[in-house]
């Protein structure tokens, strides 16, 4: 198990190299010079050229990338063009807000999605099942920004119950976490249902019934633990992507998270911050994935023994 975790952590290195290379390449290809951006409209071509030279931007792409990696290994990813703060400081400053929102959204999704999926599966083809499935379909197909705007319209503008932007109190958390959690809720509901339906057809469920296990326990003990195995993967993937900053939700609600930081930085062409956000997102996503895989081993003994 330890060996496996170590191996997975080592695997992060090539993943990171790949991700940064691609992002670096894209940034390199986009028109506009960071030096001009930094100096403003009035700068002369000479000034720009001088600054480009100073920033190493006149060197070939590969050299630039090499320098980036070299500095990155020392923990130096550059400074924001705008605030002049080290970029990772910028990103980490925003992370708590993103984490809070992601946890709230996932809590909603898990607490509603799993029971809804179980009920839907055990009452297959009944009205309850159909209603749940229609709601879940609406949930996955509703565009996030639209949902966010609708919630603001209803609960902030019309009813005046909840704030529409900012993050100062827990009240501010409600609308964004519902907005962000809804599609995850729907996805988890559907996944739990289909996984549960698959599991309750299995022979070992019949064995449990033949032993005289009460039906409630057949579902909650024998079926659920098996059915949750694929659901945990989905939860992990959802959580991983929420942690990277929910760009749309954070923008709609002006939530000061990593997603909003990234969007603002792209708009202002603050390339070092964009790079840092993307690297950060890739790292969190990989770490959450690893955590899910480890968790897996605890749920499924067949996987655990593969590691030993």
């Amino acid at each position: 198990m330890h060996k496996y975790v170590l191996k997975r952590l080592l695997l992060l290195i090539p993943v990171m190299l790949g991700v940064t290379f691609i992002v670096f390449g894209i940034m390199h290809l986009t028109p506009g010079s960071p030096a001009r951006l930094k100096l403003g409209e009035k700068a002369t071509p000479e000034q720009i050229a001088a600054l480009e030279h100073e920033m190493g931007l006149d060197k070939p792409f590969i050299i630039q990338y090499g320098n980036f990696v070299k500095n990155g290994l020392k923990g130096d990813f550059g400074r924001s063009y705008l605030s002049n703060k080290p970029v990772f400081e910028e990103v980490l400053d925003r992370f708590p807000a993103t984490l809070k929102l992601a946890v709230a959204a996932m809590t909603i999704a898990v607490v509603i999605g799993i029971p809804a999926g179980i009920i839907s599966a055990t009452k297959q083809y009944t009205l309850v099942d159909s209603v749940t499935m229609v709601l879940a379909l609406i949930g996955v197909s509703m565009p996030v920004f639209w949902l966010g705007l609708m919630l603001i319209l209803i609960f902030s503008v019309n009813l005046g119950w909840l704030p529409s932007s900012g993050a100062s109190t827990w009240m501010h958390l409600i609308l964004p976490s519902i907005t962000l959690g809804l599609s995850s809720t729907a996805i988890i509901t559907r996944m739990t249902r289909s996984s549960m339906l698959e599991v309750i057809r299995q022979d070992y469920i019949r064995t449990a019934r033949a032993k005289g296990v009460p039906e409630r326990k057949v579902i909650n003990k024998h079926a659920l633990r098996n059915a949750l195995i694929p659901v945990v993967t989905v939860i992990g993937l959802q959580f991983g992507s929420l942690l990277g900053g929910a760009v749309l939700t954070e923008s709609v609600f002006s939530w000061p998270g990593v997603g909003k930081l990234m969007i603002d930085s792209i708009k202002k062409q603050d390339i070092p911050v964009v790079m840092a956000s993307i690297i950060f997102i890739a790292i969190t996503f990989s770490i959450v994935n690893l955590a899910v895989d480890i968790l897996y081993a605890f749920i499924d003994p067949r996987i655990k023994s593969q590691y030993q």
Partner: protein
Amino acid sequence: MSNEFLSIEDLHIHYITQEGTVKAVNGIDLKLNKGETLGLVGETGAGKTTTALGILRLIPNPPGKIMDGKIILEGRNLLELSEEEMRKIRGKKVSMIFQDPMTSLNPVMTVGEQIAEVIEIHEDVNKEEAKEKAKEMLELVGISGGRAGDYPHQFSGGMKQRVVIAIALACSPELLIADEPTTALDVTIQAQVLDLMQGLKKEFNTAMILITHDLGVVAEACDKVAIIYAGEIVEYADIESLFASPKHPYTQGLFASIPSLDEDVERLNPIKGLMPEPTDLPSGCRFHPRCPYAEAKCSEMDPKSVEVGAEHRVKCLIYSGEVSGKGIENE
């Protein structure tokens, strides 16, 4: 009352599917005394598993439904019990061993937990005692008690089936239904598992319904045999008279198909033709399209069960004198 323990009367079970109604069990009558072993023999799709699940009321519903009949266990009709009363019978009075040991155990529970669970449900013991007893049961089926903490995937097929047997016997059931318990196992393991079951059955004085399509297994293990075809018992007899003089043309076909010792055949394919589609059963005698002695009448009349000896009944028009059955071997 006699020592009659289980009596199934006119049992009908259908699966109602989009493709049509599968008439899986069509008027089965069976009787079983305490401690006796009844062999239920027939081709794949004959309705053996359905009958067995019917006794435990575990037919998947939908699509399955017990349409009619009685299943009387010690004077009580199981079909009239509440779900809760039925649950208390399952695993305690009546246990079942399923066909495929590879899929019958819960992959995320240790085998010890799975055995202990049935003991905890039905016996007045605490968790620790149940665990202890689970270990004893493992030892009884020839697995070291120290392996109680292992998961199913850590065992071979034959070992898994031993675990399933341990679960089934943990609460000393009075009736054990074994649905092709050895079919999925290697030939060498088959004999071991069968011996184990036989021994334990004697030890616990359990009655058993042994489902198989292997007449060799029947000869070795059973007191009585019921031959099932398209959801009907076409012949029922004690083992001696059946092996001495099989009456029904289908039974005779089964015997004719027993391979010589050095051949090994997985499935019975005794007689030309296939089992009829259970959604579209032939009229009259269900077997007539494949029967070498069939006459016109066989497609028109439903054969009734006729006594042809002490405890030997056959469902065939030849024996009720309706049809001549020219050429049939019948001493």
